[in-house]
């Protein structure tokens, strides 16, 4: 194992240990409520980067995958009373299948046309769920949490740790892709798809793979949200805000390296949480807008673009 890989996995273990220790030591529940949302955005932003950052296909349908995750969990709870790990695993499978379907239907489109198709996807799925009465339809559905599992003393703390686990999985997968042939292939097709195709890069297969993995991670991130809110309705689960926020997080952090969306999600997610309980008015929407404009103008490559003074000669910084 390379030295950087050892450092990464060591960091992941330390991160998870710290999150677990926090759930055991901190009695106040607010940090877990707020932290859960930030971690959820980290998973979404990292998952978005696989397709949107590495392959350059801007996906506006994050809310579709997230909502599918939420409603897969709702369906499993309502129909079978399925436990949380089953909800997450099934959501990931459903998300990956949706990613495959979406990829097959839309990945032949490029640029703005692909983005519009992903928005349409979210609308189609939301309309379907709105008419699916078993999961509450338009009226939404309230859910009861099962008893919490040891060593956690509250369900929110458990969900917080589960989301931290998903962060590690999502980052590890994204990092793995970035440093592999897949990542280099995706970079090649982002720079010039035709040239990549001509040089033997299997572009459609790679894009499909990116779509499948990205979709699986986004849906997995959505699954615990059903139990976090103990309520689901189509408006909230398929809220376009998820797509816009995730896009902004990835752009603010930078999309060339897996650390970019992580930083962006922490920065923007924390700011959103802070503004919600400080300024708490229309102004917080303005602040986020201004932040995005400033970053796009002053740091088009995001936070990591600011840190890395010179671009690396070879893709795949570890």
């Amino acid at each position, binding site marked *: 194992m390379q030295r950087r890989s050892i450092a990464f996995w060591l960091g992941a273990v330390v991160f998870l240990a710290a999150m677990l220790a926090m759930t055991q030591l901190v009695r106040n529940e*607010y940090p877990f409520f707020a932290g*859960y949302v930030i971690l959820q955005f980290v998973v979404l932003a990292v998952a978005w980067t696989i397709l949107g950052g590495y392959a350059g296909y801007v996906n506006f349908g994050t809310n579709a995958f997230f909502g599918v995750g939420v409603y897969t969990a709702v369906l499993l709870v309502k129909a079978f009373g399925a436990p949380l790990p089953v909800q997450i695993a099934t959501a990931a499978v459903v998300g990956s299948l949706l990613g495959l379907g979406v990829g097959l239907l839309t990945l032949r489109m490029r640029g703005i046309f692909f983005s519009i198709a992903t928005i349409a996807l979210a609308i189609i799925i939301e309309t379907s769920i709105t008419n699916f009465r078993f999961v509450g339809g*338009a009226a*939404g559905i309230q859910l*009861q949490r099962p008893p919490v599992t040891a060593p956690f003393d509250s369900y929110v703390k458990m969900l917080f740790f589960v989301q931290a686990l998903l962060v590690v999985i999502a980052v590890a997968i994204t990092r793995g892709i970035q440093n592999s042939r897949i990542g280099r292939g995706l970079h090649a097709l982002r720079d010039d798809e035709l040239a990549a195709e001509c040089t033997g890069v299997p572009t459609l297969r790679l894009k499909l793979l990116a779509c499948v993995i990205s979709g699986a991670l986004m849906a997995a991130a959505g699954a615990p949200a059903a139990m976090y*809110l103990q*309520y689901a309705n189509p408006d909230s689960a398929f809220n376009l805000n998820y797509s816009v926020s995730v896009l902004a997080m990835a752009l603010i952090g930078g999309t060339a390296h897996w650390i970019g969306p992580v930083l962006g999600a922490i920065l923007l997610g924390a700011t959103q949480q802070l503004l919600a309980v400080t300024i708490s008015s229309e102004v917080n929407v303005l602040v986020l807008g201004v932040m995005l404009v400033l970053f796009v103008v002053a740091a088009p490559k995001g936070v990591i673009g600011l840190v890395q003074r010179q671009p690396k000669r070879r893709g795949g910084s570890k």
Partner: protein
Amino acid sequence: MNRRLLLGWAAAITLLGLMPAARAEEPPIRIGMSMPQTGGLAGGGKASLLGIEIWRDDINARGGLLGRKVELVVYDDKSSASETPAIYAKLLDIDKVDLLFAPYATVPTAPIMPLVKQRGLLLMGNFSFQVNSKVHHDMWFNNAPWGPADSWATGFLTLGQKAGGKTMALLSADQEFAQNLATTARDVAKKLDLNVVFDQAYPPSLAEFSSIVRAMNATKPDIVFVASYPPDSAAILRAVNEIGVGDNVRIFGGAMVGLQFAAVMENLGSLMNGVVNFNTWLPEPSMYFDGTKEFFETYSKRAVEAKVDPLGYYLAPYGYAMGQMVEAAANATKSLDQKGLAKYLHENTMQTIVGPITFAENGEWKESSTLEAQFRGVKDKNVDQFRSPGKQVILFPDRLKTGDLITPFEKARE
């Protein structure tokens, strides 16, 4: 030196003298809530908050609650269910508020119900609909005049049946609130033995209703129950104005959201004539209770500064009443103990500016006060006309009634 010493002692004694007074100054009672101030529910949320703020200022002017000033801790939930769990966790764990009010509407409230139940906290609801039906929290008190779940449809459909209606058309938006009402309307229609000849849910983004209105007309319904949101309420009325609904329709309306808000009412003007629709408060003689007139005098002035609904009939007085109920319970029990307050609220009738309020076991009003009123003689582009009685005549419930239904609908539109 002696003079300095003397001055020093004098200052120390003065400070000591002030200390008991400072100790006696008790910290304020903090009431925490989230309120939609941005997003789709913001219009209602801001008006509701203004009503609560007027109560806070009134009670503070009277010396406070239990001798302590009242302070509101309010955060914007952006009209979203996903924001409220973290906000209420902060209110409880960081801000350490003494009491909780729920945000306006069902969706932002639903996720906090399990939290308050888990922690055994009193929660004053704010215009939610059946949000406690599955949670069964015994310290929930919904500050909304809905009463039993089916009362809404019962009022309208009973009026229609009394006017000779035998068949019903149901037109509803595919959204949370409208679908809840549509479900109860179907149940009530069954109970009243009304034949549902048309039942159509439409997507919330629909803007053109002429084809739906034509399809509905083809079924020749006697009663038309509409559960819609502001943009579609306006679009439906425009389509009806162009196409008409025929003389067979005895009564039209029911649950059209938007026709309670000044901006929409001003915009639609005479198009609303004849429509029988729900409301929660109206400037009719039967609706004035102790303090109602004074409240609206204050509200009218402050609404201009706050740039919220200038009429504020739908939500604002209920915001004030929410404070009044807490005030009555705290004064009677002489404490802020949440269990004691809940017990008082369950067992007593509270006198408020929207009338006497008694809660049922499930935390909803024991008796519905949801009004069904008919628009009459409304002119275009004049918001002030709605401040006078007679523009929305109350037909239901009987104890608040100020007139009889004009039927058929086409005649009432004239």
